[in-house]
């Protein structure tokens, strides 16, 4: 039987549900941000005519 989640001390530091460690999760977030900025850069260049850049 699983112990009731609400009875656990809330300061327990569990591992993340994916990517193994929290540091891996943080790294994935930073890479995701870099990817977003690159995609927005492409979006700006692709749809803004050269004349007005």
């Amino acid at each position: 039987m699983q112990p009731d989640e609400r009875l656990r001390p809330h300061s327990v530091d569990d591992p993340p549900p994916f990517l193994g460690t929290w540091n891996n999760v943080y790294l994935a977030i930073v890479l995701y941000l870099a990817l977003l900025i690159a995609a927005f850069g492409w979006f700006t260049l692709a749809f803004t005519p050269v004349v007005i850049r």
Partner: protein
Amino acid sequence: MVHPGLYAGGDPVTTLDWVVLVGWLLVTIVYGLYKARGSNTTQAYLLAGKSMPWYAIGLSIMATQASAITFISTTGQSYVDGMRFVQFYFGLPLAMVILSMTAVPIFHRADVYTAYEYLGQRFDRRARTLVSLLFLVSRGLGAGVALYAPAVVLSVALGFSERWTTILMGVLVVGYTTMGGVKAVTWSDVQQMLLIFGGLVTALFLAVWNLPADIGLGDAVSIAGAAGRLNAIVTTFDWDDRYNVWSGLIGGMFLALAYFGTDQSQVQRYLTGRSIAQSRLSLLFNAMAKIPMQFFVLFIGTVVFAYYHFEKPPVLFQPADQRKLEAGAEAGAMTGRFDRAFTERRDAARTWLKSRSEADLARYRATQKEVDATRAAAMKQTGAAADTNYIFLHFVTTTMPPGLVGLMIAVIFAAAMSTISGEVNSLATVTIMDLYRPFQANAGDAHLLLASRVATMFWGTYAVVFAGFAGRLGSLIEAVNIVGSLFYGGMLGAFVVAFFMPRVTSAGAFWGVLAGEAAIFYCFLATKISFLWYNVIGALVVIAVAVAVSAVAPAKATDTPSAS
């Protein structure tokens, strides 16, 4: 069937819209109160008994941040200024990572009700009280603006006065927040955020659907790009420029650190997490979802911008200003100038879409400049200050069929109510836990619970009263961010020295915060530095002064932390 429109003197909202709006309001409030049943202790009322799962906290954080201003003003902002505002959020994922590594475990282990209670443990009551007061001032002002935004919507769309609308909104929000506490706020936020997502998709779909038959989404995007509205990335660095990639990454990160790390309206959300991992996941969910969501909202504004190339908009979107313009001595000349500019721009856009030649692009851009110049002249003539806030509203009420108008108004309501409820709840928590409880050593739990409910009602009333003045602040989204930036730098500096600088004393933190705030107000009043940098400057000044004071004035016996 399309609404006859506010601007033609028609009835803007049908019975079906009212059914959708009132029905949604009832469902949300009843659902929130149902989920909050049993919140009969102070911890349950203010921290949901630390039982919330990450997805509910994450959506609640997002809903609290995504105010009605997000929809009313952000779409209008991309209409007039393009998508570069999205860069403002680039620092947010970095801030979420830093806070997940630092603030979340520290606050959880300190077992506090508020972030400022932790400052009391680390420093003393003086530092805790000072930062609590900074929060109450800044968030109190923000709550008023957040309440005013939907009042704009309702007063225009439903024909109510702004005053009565703020009172109605205030009563609704304060009612369920007072009764259900943070649990009611959080679960209502979950529902509201899901409605917001649905509303956004619907708005974009209808914006594209309403384009002329020969104009597709690709053409609309091309037009927005030709007008310089798709400037999602600006790499040029300029201290005075509010939105470029550098101010977004650095200034935005500091603002997000301050907002999510020191603002109780956010901290209280993740303090309700049932574990450190759940709180972290809620922040990281925001790190992933916030930027795409803002991009989507801004993109809707650019499609609306393209739509109004083919459907003539009023010169001014604010109905009262438009009426003022039409009643003025130069009404004929101004509307005639706008009609010519609109027709020339529409024709130039079609010509350029077919030819894609540089000459036609230059002609189109000249016509766009004339439309902008005409609107600017009309705004100057009428004294219009916040026309941006009415663009999306005009689009919704003049293009959408009955029922959907009610849905879109419900979306704006949802965004507003989730923000205000979170803010009022956090203001009450800080008032009771940081300013009242320290002087009520013998107060029992029932006493504090009652005091929390009274404080919730007080802050709700305060927000309603302040909302009466918010209309004079210009673009609402910027007003909120500027007000926040005046105080966040000092607050952020206090937490940085508390977390990372064990040698900093209570006196150092106290004088550091005062010096940081003085530096920020100097920048605001005497320089043209963009508000995004205030947090960086303020936090750095706090750190420098705190370190210096701590070095020259060692800790005294009175610097011992206060009991909480």
